[in-house]
């Protein structure tokens, strides 16, 4: 490998001091400071929306900080242009590998190697391929690779920049078992070859085995920094991952327990789904009855959202069947399933931002004349009546979530799926949303609740589906649900690599 001459002043490769980044009024990252020394492996963790990706994009020079000082490999990132980072010794490997599909593996790596001096190129390409074990597959088109190979290629491409710092964005996502082990070994080898690493990761195992320090982000701020051990035992960290129990003593659940023989309204039978070479949901089966709340739990990347999209029809199931009232619906498109009675409150709400609240709600109606469902929505969320002429894009997150729920309710769904209901919402608002879920279920609607806040979700649920890397690892009543399973699914601490 080609190292620039050692210079003690360059020993600090990344220095962030009070770095913030805003997107049109929304603060994605606020006042983050840390230092990274040569040879370090820094892990970054935090729930969705905590600012991890934003931080990484600043480090990679894809975006510039709004305020604060950020120096990466001696370069002031406040002044860098697109691609400068790549030329300056920073390699980035993405969560979802996007290779140049029509080029061969070798060519993919060669594209990256163009930033190194001509005479070193061949050596750098060879080293990158060798280190990542892609030498044998060098002449295959990248479009034909499997997931693990794609991840290797992604790493090889980053290494071909001959970087001092390699940024890894959830490279373990979608990998399981032996594949995951292999990847961890590979990343360790990359580190051993003298690179400094920044690893953004949900799969705790990766951080435990690789990182010497972990930075935890929440709401765009740094929550704590410490060793992997310190971090994973810190109650604050556990709380942001699992959610806190509710303060109030009043039980949320008002519905009587579900009779054991309630007929299935929605039946899901052996459904698998994914995108590209990746299988995200594997052989999932469950049933849900009218008025039942099914909590779908699992760590990030476990396949919850993909399951939701597959049920609703936004993605197609590769195998298996989905039956509504015994009627197969898995061949129908999303809009037909809405009419059949399956509605989704999508992650990130997906409102039509330039339309008013009223327009958003009315779009959900099955017909323009049949407006009764809106009365129910307004009864559930009286605030929406006041907001009805505001553009949906200008509302606060909680208000937007109300509109998203209202829009889904307007189609009078029999099955309502919530994807990450509480994501990015303040605790008080989350409370109100979960109250609404209880109300909706009490109307006889079957509710599939995908939720980060495990404790609160369990309070409501009649049954639980726990996913881990696409597989169902627990299905049953909430009371049978053990803390171990929970920890295994979320933090991967007591992982058995042979699964």
């Amino acid at each position, binding site marked *: 490998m080609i190292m620039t001459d050692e210079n003690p002043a360059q020993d600090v490769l990344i220095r962030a001091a009070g770095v913030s980044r805003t997107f049109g009024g929304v603060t994605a990252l606020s006042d983050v400071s840390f230092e990274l020394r040569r040879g370090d492996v820094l892990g970054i963790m935090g729930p969705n929306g905590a600012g991890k990706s934003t931080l990484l994009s600043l480090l990679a020079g894809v975006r510039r900080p709004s305020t604060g000082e950020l120096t990466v490999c001696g370069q002031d990132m406040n002044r860098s242009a697109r*691609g400068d980072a790549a030329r300056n010794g920073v390699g980035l490997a993405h969560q979802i590998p996007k290779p140049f599909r029509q080029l061969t593996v070798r060519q993919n790596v060669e594209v990256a190697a163009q*930033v190194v001096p001509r005479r070193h190129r061949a050596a750098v390409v060879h080293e990158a391929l060798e280190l990542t074990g892609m030498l044998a597959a060098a002449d295959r088109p990248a479009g034909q690779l499997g997931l693990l190979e794609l991840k290797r290629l992604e790493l090889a491409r980053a290494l071909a920049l001959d970087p001092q710092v390699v940024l890894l964005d959830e490279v373990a996502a979608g990998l399981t078992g032996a594949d995951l082990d292999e990847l961890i070994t590979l990343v360790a080898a990359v580190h051993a070859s003298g690179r400094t690493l920044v690893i953004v990761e949900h799969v705790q195992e990766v951080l435990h085995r690789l990182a010497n320090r972990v930075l935890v982000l929440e709401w765009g701020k740094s929550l704590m920094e410490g060793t992997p051990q310190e971090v994973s035992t810190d109650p604050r960290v556990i709380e942001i991952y699992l959610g806190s129990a509710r303060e109030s003593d009043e039980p949320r659940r008002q519905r009587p327990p579900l009779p054991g023989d309630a007929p299935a309204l929605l039946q899901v039978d052996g459904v698998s789904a994914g995108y590209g070479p990746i299988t995200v949901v594997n052989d999932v089966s469950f049933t849900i009855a009218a008025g039942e709340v099914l909590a779908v739990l699992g760590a990030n990347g476990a396949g919850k959202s993909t399951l939701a999209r597959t049920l609703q029809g936004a993605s197609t199931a590769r195998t298996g069947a989905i039956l509504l009232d015994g009627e197969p619906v898995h061949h129908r498109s999303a809009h037909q399933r809405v009419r059949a009675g399956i509605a989704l409150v999508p992650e990130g709400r997906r409102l039509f931002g330039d339309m008013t609240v009223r327009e958003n709600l009315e779009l959900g109606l099955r017909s323009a004349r049949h407006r009764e469902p809106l009365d129910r929505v307004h009864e559930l969320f009286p605030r929406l009546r006041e907001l009805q002429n505001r553009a949906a894009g200008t509302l606060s997150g909680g208000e937007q979530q109300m509109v998203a729920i209202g829009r889904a309710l307007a189609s009078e769904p029999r099955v309502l799926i919530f994807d990450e209901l509480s994501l990015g919402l303040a605790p008080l608002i989350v409370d109100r949303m979960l109250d609404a879920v209880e109300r909706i279920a009490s109307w006889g609607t079957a509710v599939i609740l995908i939720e980060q806040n495990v404790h609160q979700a369990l309070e409501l649920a009649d049954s639980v589906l726990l996913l881990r890397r696409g597989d169902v690892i627990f299905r049953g009543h909430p009371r049978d649900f053990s803390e171990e399973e929970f920890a295994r699914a979320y933090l991967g601490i007591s992982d058995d690599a042979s699964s």
Partner: protein
Amino acid sequence: MTDLTAPRASRAPRALARLARYGAPLLVAVALLASSEGLRLATVNQLTSLLLLAVLAMSWNLVSGFGGQFSLGHSIFVGVGGYATAVILDLLGLPLVVVLVLSGVIAALIGVVLAYPMLRLRGPYFAIGTLGLALAVQGWMLNWDFTRASQGYSIPLDQSVDLLTVMRIAVVLALVAVIVSQLIVDLPLGLRLLALRDNEDGALALGVRRLRTLLPTWAISAFLVGVMGAVVALQNGQVTPQSAFSIQYTLDAVIICVIGGLGTLYGPLIGAVAVFVLRQFTADFAGWASLIEAIIVILIVRFAPDGAMGVLSGLSRLVRRALVRRRRLEASSSTESTREGVAA
């Protein structure tokens, strides 16, 4: 039969393949040049038209196929090349080779000047912008005394070139176009180009500079099309703004590449042959010719959107899969193995 699935091609066959890729077109060209004396004049004339069509398509393919920038402005370079040749021959009377190269260089320079602002546009905006540019230029040329409008700028008869020579020039030009296309794919420039087309963000993140990659490609493409326009002018004996700057040239390039396979090395060649043969065939149907051609284009876009090359590679994949399956079956039956591959 070699094992097609062998992951590793040893060095020798790869070098051989490379030699073949550059050598074969060279051989074909030399064969054509050597046998050109014996060809009928009709063949010579048709071959010239075919080769020019192929050069046009290959050059456009560099920018729009490999580079992913859907240019609707390439007719400008046909016109510039044609006029440059006619005017230089008329006024300066330089040697023909010099005139041709000069025409290409002028087209390339104009190409760079135009591309510099145009490349700021993306996607459909680029297509609309280049189309607007092509029309503005044609509108200007139609109204500029210099171009002699519909009467046209004739190549002085004493400078004119016989059809056999024109064909030889076309052969050499086509050879250059093929070699340049190959080179671009093999060289770092081509890698960057393909990377930009496949995933622009990814390429930029890896330090690929957009303008530095696209501008030279654009210049090469404009050069080839400029020389092609010059040869068209030689073949026709005159240039008029109406025909030399005709949008039809760009559309021909699009049609050929769509039929042959956009962004492939040999797609434009196959497409040019297909379109040429089709046009010979439909010439008997007079007014119906363009209808038939348009319907074929629509059908190809609808049912084989990757063109002839897409169909070919699809077929070869099928054949390969069938071979592999057969071999696997043979292997499993010979070992009496009961384990069936899960991969099936």
